[in-house]
């Protein structure tokens, strides 16, 4: 077999890879490091992706997601300014609340999907690693005169995800128990000032903790010392988000897909629809009104063969209707799962499809998303 490590040999020829504040810790933990979005990141640890994934579903997993972009928009009316670049309601976002949204293009495509949180003195953004330079250039070009845009490259981002995450984090920061899904607070943890969000990319309850690089390793070590916590790499992060039906930029969404096709129209508020003043509004609102021609759906291939990204999808009419955009094995599902785009007429749950895997037809069915129910914490149990 060629290159079982699965690393892209071309990556070696490019610029030297950046390292996060947790690089030494990853090596010490025995991580398999791979190039990802310009960083050397842990794809897995010695237990392997499946065990790491299942640990996040049953206890708590710690992920280094410091490669993601963290940025601050401050000065003037940052929320009003950002609304000129996104279709979501940012002005209505109360301080201490976070929202999922996207930067859209004038043609109605998705430039990036982002998390936006409001603070008293501006907005915090979390951007995809591979898109952060593009995003910041776009934001600075369009909003530079009105707001101050700053990348926070000196901050790490640590995700603690799983049903035990809140109990673990509450030992050093009791107030996190009071936080609800998509709430953010500034909290001192072990003497370090952290911006804590009750959010994540796994479908589980959990937190993302933004902390200055200088304090990141100490925090990660303290969390890993708790009996419920195990490290998890980008491999498990990908299988967890796929089971949770969450989009991965550059795969499930890109500049060619609209929020409506991607089944993300829920991120566009009534007020913004009425105002119709965001980039790509004509296409996006047209698709909301008339329905898009294609839709992102969940797909369950029959049997055990995974259907990877790029796999052709044959519709009930017998011709190709789309392609898989994310696909693999779901450890909690216990079998292959995928997401992809199909013609709107074939997007109904239960529609029979065929996938072309290595030249052979594999029967499959459209299924609802997520594959594994979200377990976000929305209030007192």
């Amino acid at each position: 077999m060629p290159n079982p490590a699965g690393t892209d040999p071309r990556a070696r020829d490019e610029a030297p890879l950046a390292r996060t504040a947790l690089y030494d810790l990853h090596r010490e933990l025995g991580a398999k490091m791979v190039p990802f979005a310009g960083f050397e990141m842990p794809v897995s640890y010695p237990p392997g992706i499946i065990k790491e994934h299942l640990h996040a579903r049953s206890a708590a997993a710690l992920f280094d997601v410091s490669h993601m972009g963290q940025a601050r928009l401050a000065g003037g009316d940052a929320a009003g300014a950002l609304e000129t670049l996104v279709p979501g309601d940012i002005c209505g976002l109360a301080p201490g609340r976070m929202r999922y949204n996207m930067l859209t293009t004038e043609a109605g495509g998705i430039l990036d999907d982002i998390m936006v949180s409001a603070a008293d003195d501006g907005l915090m953004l979390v951007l995809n690693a591979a898109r952060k330079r593009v995003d910041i250039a776009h934001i600075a070009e369009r909003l530079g005169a009105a707001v101050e845009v700053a990348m926070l490259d000196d901050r790490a981002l640590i995700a603690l995800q799983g049903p035990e995450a809140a109990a673990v984090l509450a030992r050093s920061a009791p107030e996190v128990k009071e936080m609800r899904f998509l709430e953010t607070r500034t909290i001192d943890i072990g003497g370090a000032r952290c911006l804590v969000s009750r959010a994540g990319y796994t479908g589980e309850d959990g937190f993302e903790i933004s902390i200055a690089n200088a304090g990141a390793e100490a925090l990660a070590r303290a969390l890993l010392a708790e009996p419920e916590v195990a490290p998890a790499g980008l491999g498990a992060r990908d299988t967890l988000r796929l089971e949770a039906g969450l989009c991965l930029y550059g795969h499930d969404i890109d500049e060619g897909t609209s929020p409506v096709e991607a089944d993300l129209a829920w991120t566009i508020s009534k007020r913004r629809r009425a105002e119709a003043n965001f980039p790509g509004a004509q296409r996006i609102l047209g698709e909301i009104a008339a329905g898009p021609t294609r839709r992102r759906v969940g797909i369950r291939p029959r049997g055990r063969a995974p259907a990877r990204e790029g796999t052709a999808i044959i519709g009930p009419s017998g011709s190709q209707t789309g392609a898989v955009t994310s696909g693999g094995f779901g450890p909690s599902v216990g079998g292959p799962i995928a997401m992809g785009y199909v013609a709107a007429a074939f997007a109904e749950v239960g529609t029979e499809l065929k996938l072309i895997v290595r030249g052979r037809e594999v029967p499959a069915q459209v299924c609802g998303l997520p594959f594994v129910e979200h377990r976000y914490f929305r209030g007192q149990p």
Partner: protein
Amino acid sequence: MSELRYTSEHEWIRVDGDIATVGISQYAQEQLGDVVYVELPETGRKVAPGDDMAVVESVKAASEVYAPVAGEIVEVNAALAETPEKINQDAEGGGWFVKMSGVDQAEVDALMDGDAYRAYVEGLD
């Protein structure tokens, strides 16, 4: 039982009498991580060295497995269909892929022995 020989593409082969057993190396298994699916060839198929013979899929990706030498597939490890994790547990034993007949011993002897293969994979890291 004779010793294992290895290809630079991380397959192993072991000849016992008229039958050769083929699998992927312990190193390949470690690099792949959790194996979740294996596609095996039809028995009776004749293969040339380097032919695509099987596919092994980890959580991360699908990889081709090549025929290490020429021969005819006479048996496949059917247990891998239900328990592909056997490849992680015992890559160079119970996680074998196929058995072949008609193998030329000289072709096998030309492959790396265990020491040469270990030196080879150390050079890859």
